[in-house]
């Protein structure tokens, strides 16, 4: 059995300066209630690792606007002009990572691999300062694994054991991020009794999940 906690309690777990992995793709499959609680609490100095910085009005984008994020590791910030302005002004440190590399770096962090070898980014700015190695005549960049202090993920169903299931394009980074943080907090749309999610439908086993967020009122 997992403990279901209130969103304020979830936010209170996260200290200043924490590194948080946040699921979602342009806010789809993002843990919006946890983000709202972090916003309300005002926790500062956060490093956000996420696919994108959404928009200034939505999802992790709001934490950028509120000035709570000092560093972001993301693949895209194009829909958040505030993030772009702050990056160009030097107020927000942004590491832009190709999307497929980002998810694999997080996966590497989560599954105990020492890194990722990928041809993505060869011959571009992404290659700067990185080691590359040749395997079977093809050159690959060595990309480092990523881990976070917290993974804040969203799912469709959770059961009392913390098993998680996702739907449609709301999977995105969530199942991978659930492997790659010290503390995993899942925000389910629905919480159902054990047995109601078929074992074959579970994409994040409950052993990875530390807390479930209470269902929305």
């Amino acid at each position, binding site marked *: 059995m997992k403990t279901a906690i209130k969103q304020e309690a979830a936010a209170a777990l996260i200290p200043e300066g924490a590194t948080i992995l946040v699921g979602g*793709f*342009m*806010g*789809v*499959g993002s843990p919006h209630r946890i983000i709202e609680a972090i916003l309300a609490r005002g926790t500062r100095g956060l490093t956000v690792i996420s*696919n*994108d910085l959404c928009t200034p009005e939505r999802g992790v984008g709001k934490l950028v606007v509120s000035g709570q994020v000092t560093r972001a590791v*993301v*693949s*895209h*910030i*194009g*829909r958040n002009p505030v993030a*772009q302005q702050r*990056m*160009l002004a030097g107020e927000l440190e942004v590491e*832009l990572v*190709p*999307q*497929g*590399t980002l*998810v*694999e770096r997080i*996966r590497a962090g989560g599954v105990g691999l020492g890194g990722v070898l*990928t*041809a*993505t*980014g*060869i*011959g*571009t*700015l*992404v290659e700067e300062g990185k080691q590359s190695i040749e395997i079977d005549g093809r050159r690959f960049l060595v990309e480092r694994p990523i881990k976070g202090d917290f993974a804040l993920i969203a799912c*469709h169903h959770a059961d009392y054991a913390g098993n998680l299931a*996702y*739907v*449609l*394009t*709301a*999977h*995105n*980074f*969530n*199942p*991978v991020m659930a492997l790659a943080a010290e503390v995993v907090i899942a925000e389910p749309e629905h919480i159902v009794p054990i047995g109601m999610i078929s074992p074959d439908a579970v*994409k994040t086993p409950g052993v990875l999940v530390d807390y479930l967020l209470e269902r929305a009122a």
Partner: protein
Amino acid sequence: MMTAADHPAALDPKEIIARRISREIRAGMLVNLGIGLPTLVANHLPAGANVYFQSENGVIGLGARPPDGMQEASLTDAGGAFASAVPGAASMDSAMSFGLIRGGHLDMTVLGGLEVDERGYLANWMVPGKMVPGMGGAMDLVAGAKRVIVAMFHTAKGAPKIVPECTLPLTGARRVDLVVTEMAVIEPTAEGLVLRERAPGVTVDAIRAATSARLVVAAEVPEMDLAAAAR
């Protein structure tokens, strides 16, 4: 009867690009369309074309916009817009989605472009100091898709976008397979940029004047066939 010279006025430049690229798509392909102009390509496929569109946010079998009132918050395209799905669709996480892209399982991607150069290299993800949206999935698509087609306007504010060497940061060091603009179809090859086709009514001289890169031009350059593809 419409003459060739009437076509440019009759067809929006974006429509020319989208229609021409739609003719590159074959039945059974898995295709990823980038945001913006490339998305229009889907409008020109005949019904029953038996093509699956992949969207990198995690779906194979992306469909048209859903009817009003039927939008599902958990079914969107890579631009975050509400989408639908076709029979046979599959959803997946980002690791699988990019595994398909990087692993060579994607038959074709259509991407927007800021510049393409004589090597066939594409720059499409940032203008230093001005516009830095990030590369999103573009670098993975360029590195991994079997075929990369660039859909873009031939010039930007009068300045050529097909240039001797990209001045903007590259999206990849891979020669793209085809560049389609409202003026021309250009194929990057080991011998350089080969002018394959011209848009209806557009002369080779006009294409040369709008291109700063060296073009390889055959004696005869046919007009694009913009009739609806049906295969």
